[in-house]
């Protein structure tokens, strides 16, 4: 029953204000970059048709959120039904890196995902085009964090110079698709379980 329905992959981008969430989304969906993206207020979204498993297509919905802390209270509404969550930090901003864990926790508490231990996250360290001297987060410490949070895939990207954005989103699409299918399978399992219970009941009544 779920195979006929269009596959929709919902991806949420989270991270501190100014790390480049909007730029990454526009780079991936439209392959464009502007120095002048306005601050996101509430949530914006873009969609992109993608190929999965060779000939199948899916719609990837990318939801871009506001970075200021107070907007998290809207998250409850927007996180629901997500298939993958992208956590972004800025390689030149220590605070944004330190907040990655709390963004993940915040998401898990509000998203109401079926199995939090296996829910897919991807970490993006953005703005790697900026000169070396300004970078404050080493590759090593980023890898350590990704490992400590449960071996989350990590990509160092630049939305401005279009570095690693496509490979990162390919991984995001892959894990979102996996999650989407797991959920569909779980739904079907529940569905079958429900039928089984009924059958069991009938068998009992026959035995009487």
């Amino acid at each position, binding site marked *: 029953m779920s195979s006929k329905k*269009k596959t*929709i992959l*919902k991806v949420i981008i989270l991270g501190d*204000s*100014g790390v480049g969430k909007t730029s990454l989304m526009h780079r991936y969906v439209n392959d464009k970059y*502007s120095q*002048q*993206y*306005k*601050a*996101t*207020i*509430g*949530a*914006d*979204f873009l*969609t992109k048709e993608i190929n999965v498993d060779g000939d199948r297509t899916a*719609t990837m*919905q990318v939801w871009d959120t*506001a*970075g*200021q802390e*107070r*907007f998290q*209270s*809207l998250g409850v*509404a*927007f996180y*629901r*039904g997500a298939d993958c969550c992208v956590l972004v930090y800025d390689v030149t901003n220590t605070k944004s890196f330190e907040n990655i864990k709390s963004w993940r926790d915040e998401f*898990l*508490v509000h998203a109401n995902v079926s199995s*939090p*231990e296996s829910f897919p996250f991807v970490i993006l360290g953005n703005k790697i085009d900026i000169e070396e001297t300004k970078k404050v987060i080493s590759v090593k410490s980023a890898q350590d964090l990704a490992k400590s949070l449960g071996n989350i895939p990590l990509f160092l990207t630049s939305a401005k110079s279009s570095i690693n954005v496509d490979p990162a989103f390919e991984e995001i699409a892959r894990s979102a698709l996996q999650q989407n299918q797991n959920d569909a399978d779980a739904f079907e399992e529940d569905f079958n379980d429900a039928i089984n219970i009924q059958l069991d009941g009938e068998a009992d009544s026959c035995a009487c």
Partner: protein
Amino acid sequence: MGSTSDSYSSSQETLATLESNTIYDFIPSYINLGFQKELKLKIIRDTTNPVVLEILGSEKFGFIENKVRSKCWHCLLSRQLRLENSRNNDVLIDHPDENQINLDVKRSFSFVENTKHRDFLKDLLSRIIIGIFRKHPKLRYYQGYHDIVSLFILVWHSNEEVDLSLSTMILSAVDAQFDTVFECVEIFTLVYLRDFMMNSLDFPIDQLKLISHLIKEKDPDLYHSMKLDKISPFFAISSILTFFSHDLKPTNENSIIWEIFDLIISKNSSFIPILIFTNFILMQKQKLIDQINLNTENFDNETDLIHASIQQILLTSISNENFFFKIMTITRLNYNRDVKLLSKVLFDSRIINCGSPLLTTAKGNNKTLFDTKDIDNLIDKQIKINGTRKNIRQTNTRFNIVLYHVINNKHLLVKLSILVGLLAIISKFSNRNLIWETYHKTKKVWLDPLHCLLHNPTSYLYSNNN
């Protein structure tokens, strides 16, 4: 209810005839728009009476051009709040939100092409916003406030040639102008934006709910087909927080956003943004329903479906400014009736905090001139209410986090289950008699004192006295 929705659609049909129902309707309609504006401009320039200015600003075209607008806004705003002390330059204590302010200032004025002028405007924006928060440290900055302040700056600084020569010329003139802009921004902030400047979004979210309530009153069918009984109207958050200045950019003197602010300031009414958004939804009803139907396949849940559909329609409407001019006409036309309706909704729903600008403005002719002390009291009251609500929400979230960890930590869940099971077994077998006796012994005291009292009052009192 039916009658309000009927009269709404009929008002749409007769839009053209009713558009002329304004103060300048002595100007024949065959006169072209340019000349109509020119005539109105002359009247505004000659007007010294602020009450007449309020009427002129509320009507079609608003105050027409920025040169005149800057004087009108200053005149009207200074009649809404009397500031005791002027700009305080000496405050040097950083406000905790300055980092966020800097981030947002950096990406402002993206529509200004001349980079030199853009930098000039950004510098001004930063100085004004930081000045406001250092002067009013109790207020908190929110993303979107920078869009509103940007608009104010452009009223005084839309001419790049003048600005660029000013920045290198007479400093005292620049300073005097800075003080006027600052004063206007400060009054506007304190009179209209308090709800948004607490440390949470609770109050603005309450305001959004009014949109749903209004749609329910005006068009119950649309209310149900948009599932507004089930979903939170977060789709309007950026429009309400910024009074539309986030989406409708002041790219030239004729931009619709000026008229929106002219109307808010002239009517002295925080209702305007809510009414405009409601009218936008009602006027785009069919397009919205079509878009929702078109999108149904592409969304897994209703919140996403409605949010995305409205966002798509809003984006296409923005590119068509004529449509927004029509919304403005409807908003002006229905204003008095809608204020009554919204006041009733405010009263019935009781969701708006008692210090809200929604309750302290929009009083029609009974306008209040506030002073700094009044505003300070209102802010304190609001901070208190917001704090209480935030605490309740945080306690709930903390409870959810604990619950979440218990449910998702299988080891902990197993341990807890085993513990409960063990306690049950112990109570059943090991100390069966002891527990049973304890229960019966103490029953009179902690379980059923009234029962005892009624059956045997003397012994109960006696035992208690002992």
